[in-house]
């Protein structure tokens, strides 16, 4: 029989191979639709009230503008959530906490910036203690208004749902997130 022939099996880096196959498979037509449908109808926000817009977000949870009709259920621990809603002004201290919570959330995560304070400072634009959320986190949907009406919050959730249906690519975890250059605005320039 002679000497056994060595058979070389090209394994390569197994972990990367599985990751690539997984992401490509999850982006195929049938699985992508089911996944996007599942994610759109169960957006669980972190109950993080940063400032006074929290009153209107609570009104969105109240029986009249019930948010749970769209499957939005505020969940206690940030491991089960996938939407981070910044309700109102983001001060420096709160920005640190928001950053920590954002990192704790599992990957298909989205950020809604609620209120004109979260968009670009709003009525407190020239305060020394304010941070724009767009410098801290990649924001998906902005909601104008101070405070925005509960109907506007529900419209924002619907917009996020459309955005997910249209262009959510599958990412195993945060490492594959496209790094968008966010310009760092340190302290509002002293005049």
């Amino acid at each position, binding site marked *: 029989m002679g000497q056994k022939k060595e058979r070389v099996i090209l394994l390569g880096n197994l972990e990367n191979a599985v990751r690539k196959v997984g992401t490509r498979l999850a982006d195929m037509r049938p699985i992508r639709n089911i996944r996007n449908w599942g994610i759109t109808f169960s957006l669980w926000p972190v109950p993080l009230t940063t400032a006074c817009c929290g009153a209107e977000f609570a009104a969105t949870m109240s029986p009249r503008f019930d948010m749970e009709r769209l499957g939005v259920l505020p969940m206690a621990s940030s491991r089960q959530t996938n939407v981070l809603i910044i309700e*109102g002004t983001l001060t420096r201290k709160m920005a640190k906490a928001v950053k920590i919570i954002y990192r704790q959330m599992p990957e298909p995560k989205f950020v809604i910036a609620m209120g004109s304070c979260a968009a670009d400072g709003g009525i407190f634009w020239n305060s020394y203690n304010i941070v724009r959320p767009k410098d801290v986190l990649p924001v998906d949907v902005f909601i104008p208004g101070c*405070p925005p009406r509960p109907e506007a919050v529900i419209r924002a959730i619907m917009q996020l749902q459309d955005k997910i249906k249209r262009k959510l690519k599958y990412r195993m975890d945060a490492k594959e997130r496209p790094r968008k250059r966010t310009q760092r605005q340190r302290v509002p320039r002293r005049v």
Partner: protein
Amino acid sequence: MELDGDVIVGIRPDIGWVHRAVEKIAETKKFVQVIPLIERPSIIDSANMNVGYVRAVEKLLGVEVPDRARYIRTILCELNRIASHLYGIGIFGNMIGTSTIFMWSFGDREIIVELMQELTGARLTYSFFLPGGVKGDLPDGFEEKLEKGLRYIENRIPEYNALFIENPVTEDRLKGVGVIDREKAVQIGLTGPNLRASGVEYDARMVGEYGAYKDLGFKPVTRPEGDSFARLMVRFDEIDGSIGLIRKAIREMPQGPIMHERTKGMARQVLMKVPEGEAFSRVECGRGELTFFVVSKGGDKPYRVRMVTPSFRNLIGFETALVGHRLADVPTVYGSLDYFPPEADR
């Protein structure tokens, strides 16, 4: 919070999470532009915040508000107090764990918010009072809607009693928890329902010179026990008190102008030059007594606006109420003191 096992030994509040420097920004804005600014800290109680600042500016201007405007101010302030109390009760219920009370009180609060939107046009931030009077008059057909809304709230209160107040679980968790006795409450300077729940009969509406409380014969509501249950019940009693005040105000609504001549019209408001001087005003917010100290150097921008909000003065209540209790009692006392962080940090 220092714990010895499960018992709380020491407490040091760490606030400033929502400090947005309202006082510093107020110095860069005109007198009228400061109104939307000072409403933002306590957005669920913005009419009372607004009336406080406007009273201080009126004292600087030396302007007296016509009677009809005073009555309209009282109606909106009392409606806002009911909405603010329902908000506080809702958050309190949610902290104890009964999310049904959270949903009920927020659902009923929508009725009051709808009434205020009918009167002023906005859901939460009205900016309805201007130095010298009120921006708009009562819309026609407002009295019937108001009466319907108030009767609805009155019919709902017994259901709260049945589900939430008479239920033994709530009584065990609230009675005797976070007790602040009379002398201690006065010494640490508590305000609002927390002070009246410790048996001190003080309310800024009695002594303050704003609104029509003297003509409506207002009397504060107090309870002797001073524990979390008493604080909750004082809020429910105040809702009934406010409903009575609104009904009386609507019945005795005088006719006449709603804005003082010198400050009529937006042009005069914006270009208003306030004479040099200082003014101090105090107003009863939903959570307690709010004081304003406005200093003007004669220009069109205030030199200094000082705003001490009720939650900032109730902050010291945590230490006396919580030390010695178990860790599980912290949400109960936090909810009963009705602490609203944006209002405390300004």
